[in-house]
């Protein structure tokens, strides 16, 4: 048996892993080699016994299955919470960025037009006499509660 050239093919044959030509070759050999036939019978008996014992093991119990689903639910919820936290963090960053931009934008606004200086002197006559823009007069009039002087 140890010298039989088919010995190494018997396991693959028993497992159904040979291609068709090799399978046919082994089958022809088995008809004329009792040692290989006995070896094959042993391999098959081993597979049958081991396979039967492994397959007879019980599956997951109902309690364990319930525990498993509950755990997976908590993992999925964690994932959603993490995503929500991430989105909230991004939203907070955007809000903070906008706030900073608004504050800085206000501080860095360009110098006021000349009519604001004029208006700040609270004298509509100056504004009018200088032929300053009507906006300056309107601003001054409303600031000094003199609606009758509105242009």
């Amino acid at each position: 048996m140890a010298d039989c050239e088919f010995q190494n093919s018997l396991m693959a044959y028993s497992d159904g892993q040979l291609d068709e030509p090799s399978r046919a070759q082994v089958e022809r050999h088995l008809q004329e080699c009792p040692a290989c036939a006995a070896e094959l019978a042993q391999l098959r008996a081993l597979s049958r016994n081991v396979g039967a014992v492994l397959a007879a093991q019980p599956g997951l119990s109902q309690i364990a299955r319930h525990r498993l689903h509950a755990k997976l639910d908590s993992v999925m919820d964690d994932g959603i919470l993490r995503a929500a936290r991430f989105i909230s963090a991004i939203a907070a960053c955007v809000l903070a960025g906008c706030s900073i931009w608004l504050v800085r934008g206000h501080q860095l606004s360009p110098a006021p037009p000349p009519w604001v200086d004029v208006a700040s002197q609270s004298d509509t006559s100056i504004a009018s006499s200088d032929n300053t823009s009507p906006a300056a007069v309107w601003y001054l009039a409303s600031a000094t509660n003199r609606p009758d002087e509105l242009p």
Partner: protein
Amino acid sequence: MSRNYTNEVQDVELATRAARGDARAFHDLVDRHADRLFRLAVSLLGNSTDAEDVVQETLIGAFRGLKGFEARSSFKTWITRILVLQAAQFRRRKRPMQSIPESQPTAKDQPAGSEAKLDVQAALLNLPPEHRQVIVLRELEQMTYEEIAQVLDIPQGTVESRLHRARTALREKLKAYLA
């Protein structure tokens, strides 16, 4: 259309939906594979408590990695690979597994008997882990050599040589049942 093919198509469809955030689809996938994965884990680790932990870790890992599943291998192969890796990590983390004391099988015992089952289980647990993996994937999962090679990420020739060594050791330990 074979049943395996139909199952695979349904698995891929469920996995795709689960990857898009459909929790129900993932729970369905779990129900389809939990028993099989649990038996596989028990066979690799030798007890149901550790097996339950490993199945849980496997499914959590699978959920987190679903977007990485691109159906290049079958879903069954993919998730089995995760379980085998998790089981190996678990074994390394935990204390070295206590071997079940081997009883001496006698010829009058039949393989269907409970003593014979214990002997077969003991013989399996006494195999080196890499030999136990190939035997379990072959005899329990009925995987082809090619599928086993994919799951363990080893060459097909290595699968065959490990299977051969594992079976030689098992035959020696269980010869009373094989006569």
